[in-house]
């Protein structure tokens, strides 16, 4: 294996698929040759101008990129201290979230490898919908693994996937959420690896996925960097994004990593509160361990048994996180904090009522933590916030939660 290409000032992974000590390939031997094949296909694609041209065309004409960078004036006023907040509008991507950026890229890789079937895991259903969408677009067979609990709270996305012609496979094992959906997807891949490409949806799991997903999501930060320079003539003081596995956050952060003056804030799900133990804040409250093929921060007990996570947001409800975030945490290049279910709901309402934008519950965590983040920044700070997805999918769940509350 050769060292991975360095892109846009982003560091790692090294020749062993590591970001610092994190990452690696802790997977059954059966899929090791497929990981090597995938890495080779990705390197080949990176060196092939026709791949870039095709990806660019799809991102522009199908996904709808570039997405706007919106100056959120009323939100900025509400936050005070003269801050200027810009929203990177991934919620305006086709299918309603950033997940499509990676799904399109990996579908092209799948075609390069000559495979005709794709599988995916999904939590909130956004990655599942993105995969179902590209599968339809390219005529690939698609099966999406989804925990039964998530199928209930994200029923709309289940319906969308099925309407797109994808088979949604319910996962009843364990916590019946994203962690177990990943287990089942990996087991499917172990069994069908010769004919199937696994479109992993987040910047976690075994090498080369964290690297590959970062590269496909880095379009978020590349655009945002260019757009904020154009609008303000300078780089932002901070970039903020929610972190479950960490794909939208690493996509926003990566192009700013070399800009040392840009502070990076990842917001994890504190669920019912860190002190309750019912949360999904792996970087804040976990410790290094191996889950889903890589060494990274994991919520676990003393024996290394992985603990159940909790978050109101199905997309953040995961006891692990990507290895690059683990490394950025340890080096201090990025700061990670956690936002409770209640703060996220407040964030959803705040963005809706100040900007007319209803974010996904995942993205609402980034908004919910803004007040705390801004308090630690200089007066008049310039802040880019990743709005990773739109909130439509969450309306039934949120309506149920807020039904009995008086309107504010």
């Amino acid at each position: 294996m050769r060292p991975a290409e360095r892109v846009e000032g982003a560091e790692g992974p090294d020749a062993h698929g590591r970001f610092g000590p994190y990452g690696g390939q802790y997977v059954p031997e059966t899929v090791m040759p497929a990981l090597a094949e995938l890495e080779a296909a990705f390197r080949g694609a990176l060196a092939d101008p026709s791949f870039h041209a095709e990806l660019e065309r799809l991102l522009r004409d199908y996904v709808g990129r570039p997405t706007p960078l919106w100056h959120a004036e009323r939100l900025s006023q509400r936050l005070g201290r003269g801050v200027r907040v810009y929203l990177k509008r991934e919620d305006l991507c086709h299918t309603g979230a950033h997940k499509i950026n990676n799904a399109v890229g990996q579908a092209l890789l799948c075609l390069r490898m000559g495979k005709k079937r794709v599988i995916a895991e999904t939590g909130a259903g956004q990655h599942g919908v993105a995969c179902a969408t590209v599968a339809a677009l390219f005529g690939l067979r698609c099966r999406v693994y989804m925990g039964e609990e998530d199928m209930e709270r994200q029923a709309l996305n289940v319906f969308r996937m099925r309407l797109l012609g994808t088979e949604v496979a319910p996962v009843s094992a364990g916590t019946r959420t994203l962690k177990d959906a990943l287990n089942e997807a990996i087991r499917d891949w172990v069994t069908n690896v010769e004919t199937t490409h696994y479109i992993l949806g987040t910047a976690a799991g075994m090498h080369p996925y964290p690297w590959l997903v970062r590269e496909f999501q880095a379009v978020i930060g590349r655009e945002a960097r260019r757009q904020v320079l154009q609008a303000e003539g300078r780089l932002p003081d901070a970039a903020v994004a929610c972190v479950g596995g960490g794909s939208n956050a690493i996509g926003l952060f990566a192009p700013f990593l070399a800009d040392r003056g840009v502070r990076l804030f990842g917001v994890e799900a504190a669920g019912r509160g860190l002190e309750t133990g019912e949360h999904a804040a792996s970087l804040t409250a976990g410790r290094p361990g191996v889950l889903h093929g890589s060494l990274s921060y994991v919520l676990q007990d003393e024996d290394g048994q992985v603990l159940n996570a909790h978050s109101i947001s199905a997309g953040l409800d995961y006891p692990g996180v990507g290895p690059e975030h683990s490394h950025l945490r340890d080096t201090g290049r990025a700061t990670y904090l956690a936002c409770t279910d209640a703060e996220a709901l407040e964030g959803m309402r705040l963005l809706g009522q100040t900007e007319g934008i209803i974010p996904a519950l995942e993205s609402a965590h980034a908004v919910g933590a803004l007040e705390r983040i801004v308090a630690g920044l200089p007066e008049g700070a310039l802040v880019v916030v990743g709005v990773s997805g739109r909130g439509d999918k969450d309306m039934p769940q949120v309506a149920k939660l807020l039904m009995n509350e008086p309107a504010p």
Partner: protein
Amino acid sequence: MNEGLGARSPGAGGAPGGRPEAAAPRLGASLAAVRARGAKALVPYVMLGDPDLETSVRVARAMAEAGADAIELGMPFSDPLADGPVIQAAGQRALGGGYRLARGLQAVADLRRQVACPLALMTYVNPILQRGAASFCAEAARAGADGLVVPDLPLEESAGLGASCRAQGMDLVLLVAPTSTDERIAGVARAASGFIYCVSVVGVTGAREDTLVRVPATVVRVRARTALPLLVGFGINSVEKAVRAAAVADGVIVASWIVQALADLGAGATPEARAALASRMVRVLRAGLDARPA
């Protein structure tokens, strides 16, 4: 982080307090001896703590007495991504019953006092990592384990744990699959000890239709690159399949078939009934393997 796997620092394996003197590993020697006398090795599997530790020790002892050449002891893990539904359910039963690693190792020590055959622990990487590879190996060796099988530890990540095993006189068994390239098989052959675990199918543990189709080709490719015993496992759910697999290899590992049969006895089955069934299954497997046509 704790001491970790030491994956990038081979030689960092030593920890005080393991075996009194790190003797040559017994697992590989014992299986090689089975081959030398013209027999086929039979390695049944028990999930520790399923449904409780005392019963799983009793089942393992019954297997040894019924003619097992070694026993594979599964250590429950919350996210066993190489396992099919049968072993997953067994692990969940054990964890639900309050299994803890320290008590599991105590059960290994109890078993060690009762049986002479080699014991291989099958566990995933994370429980080892959380103890630290050197400490885990020292504890396992002290309990009387002879080797480790770690299904999510491919060759590339195995150097540190391999050194820790060697320091404690244990074997680190590596796996090959039908998808392994010749180059990878050669690498595994250089690094493995004890035996090489030849995965019968492209897939997870458990039964399916076409279990043995790809075994001969895989075994031939491995055989050309190592003198270590080759054991076939995954999906061997009949005497007939065991005999066919053993015909091309040096022995078989039988897990899901036995685990499922024990589970089918129901939660109310006594330890005696479980041990008796395990004993019967090992005896019929033993008889089948010993009677195979020359």
